[in-house]
């Protein structure tokens, strides 16, 4: 078991490195970081451009630049932006914002998604099942930026109806907020509701669909009948034997769902004005900043692979046949 997980981990580290190199190389090839400087009016003297060129090491080959950057990353230095700001200074705050958003959205998405899926499977072809199916089809067909925008306007309408600001839709907290600990918590929560929903809704839709079909596969199985025949109530049999078995295929899905989450996070952060990693990524592409883009890619790769590793562990924990 430990050996298997360790080998997986080693491969993941390699994949992380390769993915980051891919982003770094593609960014270095397509971005023109001097474009903004050259486009200035009046044009800056050639020496200034040459100095910037040297500062960004643009004359060195890309692999050499990557090795130099990665060498810094190993020591906790993520290089600096084009304008010379150290990336490490901003990284912590940005990663924190994204992680808070992702963590809550994922936990909510998985928990509600699994519950909705199980409920639909048990009450198959009832009105609630059709409603859940319709909901997930609709959500999975709606891009996150549309969901986010609609949620924003829903919040606006709600605030108008309530006559006061119940739900905020910009930022993580009110700037210059004064008040006690509880008031601050309430303030943060009312900022959190809409973005978390934007993240969680698509996760709920995705997981509930798969959980429903996984649960349906289990419902007709012999071991469930046996469990009931041996005296377990239907409810106990369903949750103790049925749900556990139906969760196994879901473990691998959680890793796949994570890519969706990251992409959704980019839109959510942009729409609701959260200055997280996704927002930073878009900024990095717009500014043609390779280091920012590579840093965010590394962050994403680590998260995706960590969730993949976690789903390996979950798989092993849920499936008694796996003794690695």
């Amino acid at each position, binding site marked *: 078991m430990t050996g298997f997980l360790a080998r997986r981990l080693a491969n993941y580290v390699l994949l992380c490195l390769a993915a980051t190199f891919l982003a770094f190389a593609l960014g270095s090839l397509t971005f023109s970081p001097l474009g903004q400087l050259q486009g200035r009016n009046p044009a800056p003297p050639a020496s200034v451009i040459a100095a910037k060129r040297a500062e960004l090491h643009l004359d060195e080959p890309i692999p050499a630049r990557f090795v130099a950057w990665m060498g810094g990353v190993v020591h906790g230095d993520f290089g600096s932006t084009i304008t010379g700001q150290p990336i490490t200074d901003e990284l912590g705050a940005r990663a924190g914002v994204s992680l808070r958003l992702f963590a809550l959205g994922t936990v909510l998405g998985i928990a509600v998604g699994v519950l909705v899926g199980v409920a639909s499977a048990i009450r198959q072809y009832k009105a609630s099942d059709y409603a859940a199916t319709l909901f997930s*089809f609709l959500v999975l*067909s709606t891009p996150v930026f549309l969901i986010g925008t609609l949620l924003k*306007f829903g919040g606006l309408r709600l605030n108008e109806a309530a006559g006061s600001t119940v739900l905020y839709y910009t930022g993580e907290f009110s700037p210059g907020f004064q008040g006690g600990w509880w008031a601050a918590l309430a303030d943060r929560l009312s900022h959190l509701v809409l973005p978390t929903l934007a993240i969680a809704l698509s996760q709920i839709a995705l997981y509930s669909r798969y959980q429903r079909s996984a649960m349906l596969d289990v419902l007709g199985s012999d071991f469930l009948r046996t469990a009931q025949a041996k005296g377990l109530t239907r409810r106990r049999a369903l949750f103790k034997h049925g749900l556990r078995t139906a969760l196994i295929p879901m473990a691998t899905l959680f890793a796949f769902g994570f890519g969706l989450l990251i992409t959704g996070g980019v839109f959510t952060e942009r729409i609701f004005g959260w200055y997280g990693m996704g927002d930073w990524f878009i900024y990095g592409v717009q500014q043609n900043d390779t280091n920012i883009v590579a840093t965010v890619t590394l962050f994403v790769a680590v998260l995706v692979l960590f969730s993949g590793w976690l789903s390996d562990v979950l798989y092993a924990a849920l499936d008694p046949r796996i003794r690695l």
Partner: protein
Amino acid sequence: MSASITDPHSTAASPGSPAQPLIEGRSGRGRLVLRRFLRHRLSVIGLVCIVALYALAFLGPLFTPWGYAEQDPTAYLSPPSAQHWFGTSQIGEDVFAQTLRGLQKSLTIGLLVGIISTTIAAVVGTAAGYFGGWVDRALMWVVDLLLVIPAFLIIAILSPAFRGKTWLILVVLLAAFSWMITARIVRGLTLSLREREFVLAARFTGVPPWRIIVRHILPNMASILIIDATITVGTAILTETGLSFFGFGVQPPDVSLGTLIANGTNSALTFPWLFLFSGGLLVLTVLSVNSVGDGLRDALDPTSARGSRRRSGD
């Protein structure tokens, strides 16, 4: 296309259907699939919607005097009216003409990406599964690598390279980064098909590998490929509109549903027509594509859990 499939499932499924004496087995399978598909009311509605959307996107512009880049200086931000069916934008562009143009782009991009990406997935998946060994390991490592970074991020990084160039580059990129999961499924199926008697027989009579793959392995997974191509169409449309939303996809002066929604969101409360039509058509398109994919899955793959259960409940 699906009529000529020698699907392993078809033998299991056909006894249930009454044999048509004058029709040979092949078209019998086609009829069976068609009948199963038609049983899905939502999928049929979806198919009708897709046809209608294509007709709207490509024939609709004939019925409006306005071009998508044309500006009407007499009407800025006017609500929907007889002159401008979907209203006009801030600089007097006809939103109806723009929305149709965007719909054309999204439908075409989705269809092309679905076809190209499924082709890549079929080639990579069968090669990895059939040849095994280091080919398999190398290809699957590439799949893992590309799955680590979401396609959206890679294409966003590449976006400066195709700024101001044709949108076909966007199609190629979208296809290049959306074949991985299908390739994995194809590989798994190839692994089991490779050991079947008809493949072994072909191999021992000296048929070259590429011909075995094309003649014996691919036809047996045509249903999965068709289903996945449909699903990829939906995903591609969503990714394309997402990229365009940030200005990383279809570039102005051309429009896509994503750029239209992006332009409309800021003023959507006061001028809802800027965003409602493009948003609504986008959701309708993806919803129809997904429901057709769902119906195809049930019709082509009777062993899929949902399909068989649906049928027993009918």
